[in-house]
């Protein structure tokens, strides 16, 4: 049985939920295993900024009692998870908002609780107000960063410090740490997952979404958190499918578009090993039955910049009342965003919105011919901690790269591991779908994952 083959804390949600449902695994035992793991290695990974061990054990005990009484709520029941500090959690301080107490659950957190998940605590994110917190380390090699800004989510999920996590993505913040830490991560279509209770970075670009070790876990997490929320004015009422319906190994007949021109434009800033691994992954999708077609999206090269312009301008607007304090004591990333937002004029913001409209129209045209796009997810493997300065991650927002265009256009985007670098650091493929068609990217990602089985490797920590 899988339970005997690997530590409980490394079970996927998909594996654990089946064992819990069959009463072969107790939520209490699982939560205790994860808490022991946290005690053993988080002094090296620095993922948690607020561990809620006592309440987590109480929740696990309640889940166990409920399941014993025959009331199994579904796949998330009794599963220990943790969330990025950007999401409000009742009873927990939100450092990003500089609250000393939680103010209630974010909608996505509330939905996870209703699904029976066990809340372990809150995870580090870069650009927290108190910048002197230790930076999370990459479980594949602790000399390297996890990527951000869902820094703690990357470290915690990859290191076995929770079974899944919620992150937030404004310019790649779910996909980047997922790629660097060898995880699956998805930013669903804008409007699909409620932003209520999510501290805003940029209202029109922020996406809340799950990070996990395998694609099927993303389907379970999305099933729990997606759906209309009247508390979020941009929440969509489009009906939500059962995301586990995407979990069948088949891409036959799918058409995968490759924006070759754009990849070549970004190539001088992309490590050759990334281009190699992504090329191999696209070839695998082809060998599995997908048809691969080159596509052109002429304004894609401006989309990252437009994303940054909207990001910083909306960040400035959202954080204006706290700007004086941020400039005095805030982390360098927050201060830099304030300056860039202040330098962005209304004509710049409007031009960025016009590019957003144009880019969206071009992609809509492309998606009349293809089911998803495939392209790299990162410029290189995770850099060394010592090589990354306090604002270096901002630079990727202002040169054409792989994440921003899909925040700008709000499209569903999946990160799935596609191999390792020469020094054994993870590399990922990015799959982009039509609006509200998360199913296609999950299906393509799941098929590829099951064929290659990169998830079977575990970090050495």
């Amino acid at each position, binding site marked *: 049985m899988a339970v005997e083959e690997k530590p409980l804390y490394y079970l996927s949600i998909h594996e654990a939920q089946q064992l819990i449902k069959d009463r072969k695994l107790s939520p209490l035992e699982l939560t205790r295993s994860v808490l022991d793991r946290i005690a053993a290695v988080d002094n090296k990974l620095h993922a948690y900024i607020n561990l809620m061990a006592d309440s987590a054990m109480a929740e696990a005990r309640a889940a166990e009692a409920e399941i014993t009484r025959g009331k199994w709520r579904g796949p998330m029941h009794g599963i220990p998870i943790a969330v990025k500090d950007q999401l409000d959690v009742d009873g927990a301080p939100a450092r990003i908002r500089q609250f000393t107490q939680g103010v209630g659950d974010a909608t996505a957190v509330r939905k996870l609780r209703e699904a029976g998940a066990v809340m372990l605590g809150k995870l580090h994110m870069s650009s927290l107000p108190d910048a002197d917190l230790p930076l999370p380390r990459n479980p594949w090699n602790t000399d390297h960063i996890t990527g951000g800004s869902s820094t703690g989510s990357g470290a915690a999920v990859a290191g076995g410090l929770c079974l899944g996590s919620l992150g937030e993505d404004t310019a790649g913040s779910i996909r980047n740490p997922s790629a660097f830490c060898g995880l699956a991560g998805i930013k669903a279509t804008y409007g699909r997952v409620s932003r209520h209770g999510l501290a805003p970075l940029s209202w029109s670009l922020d996406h809340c979404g799950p990070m996990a070790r395998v694609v099927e876990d993303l389907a379970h997490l999305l099933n729990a958190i997606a759906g209309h929320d009247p508390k979020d004015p941009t929440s969509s009422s489009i009906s939500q499918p059962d995301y586990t319906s995407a979990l069948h190994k088949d891409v036959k007949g799918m058409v995968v578009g490759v924006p070759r021109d754009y990849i070549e434009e970004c190539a001088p800033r992309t490590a050759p090993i990334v281009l190699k691994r992504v090329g191999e992954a696209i070839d695998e999708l082809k060998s599995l039955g997908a048809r691969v077609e080159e596509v052109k999206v002429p304004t894609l090269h*401006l989309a990252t910049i437009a994303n940054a312009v909207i990001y910083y301008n909306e960040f400035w607007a959202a954080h204006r009342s706290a700007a004086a304090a941020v400039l005095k004591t805030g982390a360098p990333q927050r201060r830099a965003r304030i300056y860039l937002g202040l330098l962005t004029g209304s004509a710049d913001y*409007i031009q960025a919105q016009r590019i957003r409209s144009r880019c969206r129209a071009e992609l809509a045209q492309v998606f009349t011919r293809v089911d998803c796009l495939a392209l790299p997810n990162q410029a290189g493997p995770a850099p060394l901690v010592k090589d990354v300065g306090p604002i270096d991650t*901002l630079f990727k927002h202002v040169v054409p790269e792989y994440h921003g265009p899909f925040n700008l256009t709000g499209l569903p985007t999946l990160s799935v591991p596609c191999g390792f670098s020469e020094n054994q650091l993870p590399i990922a493929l990015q799959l982009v779908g039509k609006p509200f068609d998360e199913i296609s990217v999950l299906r393509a990602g799941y098929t590829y994952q099951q064929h290659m089985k990169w998830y079977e490797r575990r970090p050495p920590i």
Partner: protein
Amino acid sequence: MNKLIEDNLTAVLKREGLEAKAADLEQFSEIIELYMENLRQLHSVNLGAEELGPVFRPEWSGK
């Protein structure tokens, strides 16, 4: 940092009643100058009659 950019930033900070943290302008000069160059690039594209359009519609159908 380019003098024009620095003067501009100082002016908008002053308008907002704010002050840059000491050494920030020097520390962040590279990204600020790159960003200003990007703003110029953003306006270099001919968008013809492209309108602003809705900022974002969650129900965008792709049509």
